[in-house]
């Protein structure tokens, strides 16, 4: 079994596509769709990295990222952020909060795969 990725995303078809891509590449993929208890899920599952959408129900990806960075257990966890907004200020906000990589939707599968390999591989 390869390294473990937690995908936090609320669009079912995007989840299915990313899960397929990563599974074919040997990754173990778990998913979570609600922002409200996402941090607790990360803390309990201890993934090697997470893929985090910005627009989530109940709690934004930015807030989740901030909470993860505030917790010593997850402060250095690699985070790949997905967002429909690619404006400079969104990217800057994510970087200030400590994101490792930032990909704008719509993305290519190869970009996702390359980013995951880079981030998880650097662990």
């Amino acid at each position, binding site marked *: 079994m390869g390294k473990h990725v937690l995908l936090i995303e609320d669009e079912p078809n*995007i989840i*299915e*596509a990313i899960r397929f*891509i990563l599974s074919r590449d040997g990754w173990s993929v778990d998913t979570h769709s609600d922002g409200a208890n996402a941090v607790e899920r990360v803390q309990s599952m201890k993934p090697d990295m997470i893929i985090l959408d910005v627009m989530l129900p109940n709690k934004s990806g930015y807030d989740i990222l901030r909470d993860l960075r505030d917790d010593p257990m997850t402060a250095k966890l690699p985070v790949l952020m997905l967002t*429909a907004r690619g404006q400079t200020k969104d990217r800057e906000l994510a970087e200030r909060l400590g994101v490792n990589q930032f990909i704008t*939707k*719509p*993305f*290519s*599968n190869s970009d996702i795969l390359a980013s995951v390999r880079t981030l998880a591989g650097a662990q």
Partner: protein
Amino acid sequence: MPRSTLTGSRIRDRRTAKGLKQADLAREVGISPSYLNLIEHNRRRIGGKLLIDLSRVLEVEASQLTEGTEAALLNRMRQAAADTPKAAAEDDRSDEFAGRFPGWAGLVAAQHDRIAQLERTVETLTDRLTHDPFLSTSLYDVVSSVTSIRSTSSILAGEEELDAEWQGRFLQNLDNDSRRLAESSQALVAYLDGVGDAQGGASSPQEELEAYLLRNGFHLEALEQGTATPQDLVADAGLISEPAQILALAYFTRYQNDAACLPMAQVAALWSEMRDPAAMAQSTGTDIATVLRRIATLPDADPETRVGLVACDASGTLTFRKESPGFSIPKFGAACPLWPLYQALTRPMTPIEAVVEQASRTAPLFRCYAIAQPQQPTRFGAPVVIEATMLILPLEGSHQVMPKVEPQLIGSSCRICPRDGCSARREPSILADGF
């Protein structure tokens, strides 16, 4: 001083334009050239028969030689100068400029008005693009669908040995996402078609109703006279969406009840006599919010001085908007928390009166009357529902008229408010450097 200055300058300008010598004009009206010279250099006041004689010889209406007809023009020019202090316009000579070059003065004033109108359009569009939940949701839907389609189709195109089960699932996903994309794209196009008219495009049921009320001057004569029922009016209003029709029925029903409590003739007479909503409520045994609403339905004598009205619920959401020219009311998102409307919300049943200055180029002044009242409970044990109402009265002449009043400084909404250092600011303004 301004009147005589302007008049003298105009007489000189008109005489020169007609090719008359000073001595000839003086002789025609029976005064000495030296006296006319003093008049033309604004060192003698003029009026009565002499003004009429001069206007006759100069072939111009006497009123055109006086400042009165151009007072509004001068006021607009002074506002233009005040809005652009870096230009260092000679404000103390604006009347002379308007007298000598009325065409150029008119152009300055018209351009100032045009800039204000364009700024308003920019604010409206920015407000809509920033806060419009429909636009935001639609765009998010489009991007999500495209993302899924792109990723799924890449899998289908790139995987040579995809088993039938996965293939079927992805094809199903592709079909679902393409349908969703089609729907959200159509909704977006329909919406953007309506945005073409930034001032009039109704994108919500509330805007649809408000557009109807604006077309009718917020005064519904059929309900005032009792010649139509709220249901009749809804049927004739031409409102397209069902939610707008539901809102309209509620609004018309309340209007009908308000009119029964306070007939229009009584409101007009009391308002003319008292100019005090609390006193009007006292004398008629009506609540203040009803009085505020009724004043706002008086026919407008002049659209430029139209009385405004806003209402909000306990969450602060604006539930009704009638704009007064110069008082900017956001169509989307929250308004300025410093509005007396929201101060009233924190003190239910306490009438609040305030003179306010809204942040804009022209810094107009308004007198606001606000009150928050609980709505009639539907049953015992029902939650208390509070509604705040605020009447907005434009104060003509702004600071010149109210020299001793220190107005409360307010904005429209944080996003488009240029005030620095505001303790109530929620988010940064897009209007850097005062726009």
